[in-house]
């Protein structure tokens, strides 16, 4: 009778979902279906390589937007966005004094979506400096640096410095007037220390004035050196959040 018949007229969305999910290819990538039970939801977080930095459960107050304003997460999000747009920009940019400025112009005029990539990269870079500073303010005013999170505050200060350095090294790359003089003024500040200033400035810009050596140093630090160091510190930073018992909350 009717009870034994296949149900007729299932919604299209259901059939599409089945078609997409119930096949060998999909199942080879994601072994489970949508996690419907609390147990499966916790497993989904704990066994996924991208999600497993999270704990499986968090305190109710931690998902309240006004508790953190997502500022730390936003800083990380901007770091990822900067990595993606940065890699795309690297396709078109050669860090040589002769070519850098031409490449920038070509990027803006000849490359499809080049201007969009460059703009996104630049605004995200400024945005990251701002969100990192605001994240520090949030952590301070919520008293989240208190024991047992002292060390993570220090890691955060290091990440703030790395963020500023990343932004500063990227500032030179367009090789226009703005870049050149901002880096000249900035590195002169370091050079003004009477004891080690000159040595430091020389090491930083690879000469007595900003030129090819400075450009290649800043470029290498900007695209490889500093992001790697920042990634290591970020890994420690995020790991320590969990080890220290999640976000701070009143005892």
């Amino acid at each position, binding site marked *: 009778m009717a009870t034994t018949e296949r149900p007729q007229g299932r919604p299209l969305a259901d059939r599409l979902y089945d078609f997409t999910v119930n096949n060998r290819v999909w199942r080879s990538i994601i072994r489970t279906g949508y996690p419907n039970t609390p147990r499966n939801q*916790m497993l989904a*977080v704990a066994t996924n390589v991208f*999600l497993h930095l*999270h*704990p*499986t*459960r*968090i*305190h*109710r107050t931690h998902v309240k937007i006004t508790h953190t304003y997502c500022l730390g997460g*936003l800083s990380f*999000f*901007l770091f990822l966005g900067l990595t993606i747009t940065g890699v795309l920009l690297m396709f078109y940019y050669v860090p040589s004094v002769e070519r850098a*400025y031409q490449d920038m112009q070509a990027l803006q005029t000849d490359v499809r979506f080049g201007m*969009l990539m*460059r*703009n*996104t990269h630049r*605004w*995200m870079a400024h945005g990251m*400096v701002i969100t990192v500073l605001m994240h520090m303010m949030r952590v*301070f*005013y*919520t*008293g*989240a*640096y*208190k*024991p*047992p*999170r*002292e060390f993570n*505050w*220090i890691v955060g200060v290091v990440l703030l*410095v790395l963020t*500023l350095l990343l*932004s*500063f090294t990227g500032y030179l790359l367009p*090789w*226009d007037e*703005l*870049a*050149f*003089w*901002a880096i*000249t*003024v900035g590195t002169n*500040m370091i*050079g*003004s*220390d009477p*004891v080690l*200033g000159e040595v430091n400035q020389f090491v930083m810009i690879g000469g007595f*004035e900003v030129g090819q050596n400075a450009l290649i140093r800043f470029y290498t630090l900007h695209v490889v050196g500093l992001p790697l160091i920042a990634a290591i510190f970020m890994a420690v930073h995020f790991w320590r959040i969990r080890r*220290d*018992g999640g*976000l*701070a*909350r009143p*005892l």
Partner: protein
Amino acid sequence: MVADAPARGPSRSRGAVPSARPRRQREEELLVWPDLVFVEFISALVFTLTFVALAILINAPLQDRANPANTPNPSKAPWYFLNLQELLLHMHPALAGVIVPTVFLIILGAVPFFDTSNEGQGQWLSTPRAWPNLIVGFIVGTVGTWALIIYNSGKHIVVFERFTFDADSFDNFPPLIVDERLREWPESLNWLTSVRALQTDIAWPGELETIPLGETFVRTDLLGLPRGSIQWNFPAWIVEQAIPVNLMVGLPILLCLVAWRLGLAKTRRDFMILMFSGWLGSYLALTMAGTYFRGEGLELLWPWEVRPAES
């Protein structure tokens, strides 16, 4: 002696820092999937769209090709370093460019070790005097920094002359002080036009400007090394180092003392909030001054008088 150690109180000293979460309250917890993962996903989506929209609307600047022979005026560092560039105008370069930021970062990193209590943890400004300390610290930091910037740029002279009716510049401004003798900044007070004026407008005895440190005091020649020839310029040292260091160390201490005597700040958390907010105000003031108020020759001007750099 080992037996005495536990008498010092709860064993908090080594390794036994209390867990942040002594007991789990399952009923207070949410599952990360879906409650957090979806929030993260949505906010990633929103901010991707925001930044793409921003990138479509506003183009990143690209000026003329760099030309080392052609210095623009003013030439400025990136905006987040303009606070340091502003500091450079007021003190010895080594102090502003290296020592102040280094010492500041060390102090900033040490914040959790000054304030080790759990008071006010995990909640926005939840201690009793948090907001008053924040507001007082921020206002004192902002106003104090601006006052120092204005003084050291000699702009208090402009204010003075406005009040005493300098007929040339302010035709339509009613004179507040009509005494002829007070209309101009008195020459005998020239040493009060800026901090630098202490060096240039006081008749320092010549020998104080060239104290031969290397020859008389630091006798490197006695160690078999070449004889040094360092000359210590005492007035310059006062202006570039002694006064700035004393202000940067002394004014925060003074603020703490006053706040303590007034009962505004009582616990370490109070002092932390006061100092952090004071720094924040000062930092913003310096960044603003460097970004919007420094024109040609890095002179202090109103933002609408600042023209973009010409090279």
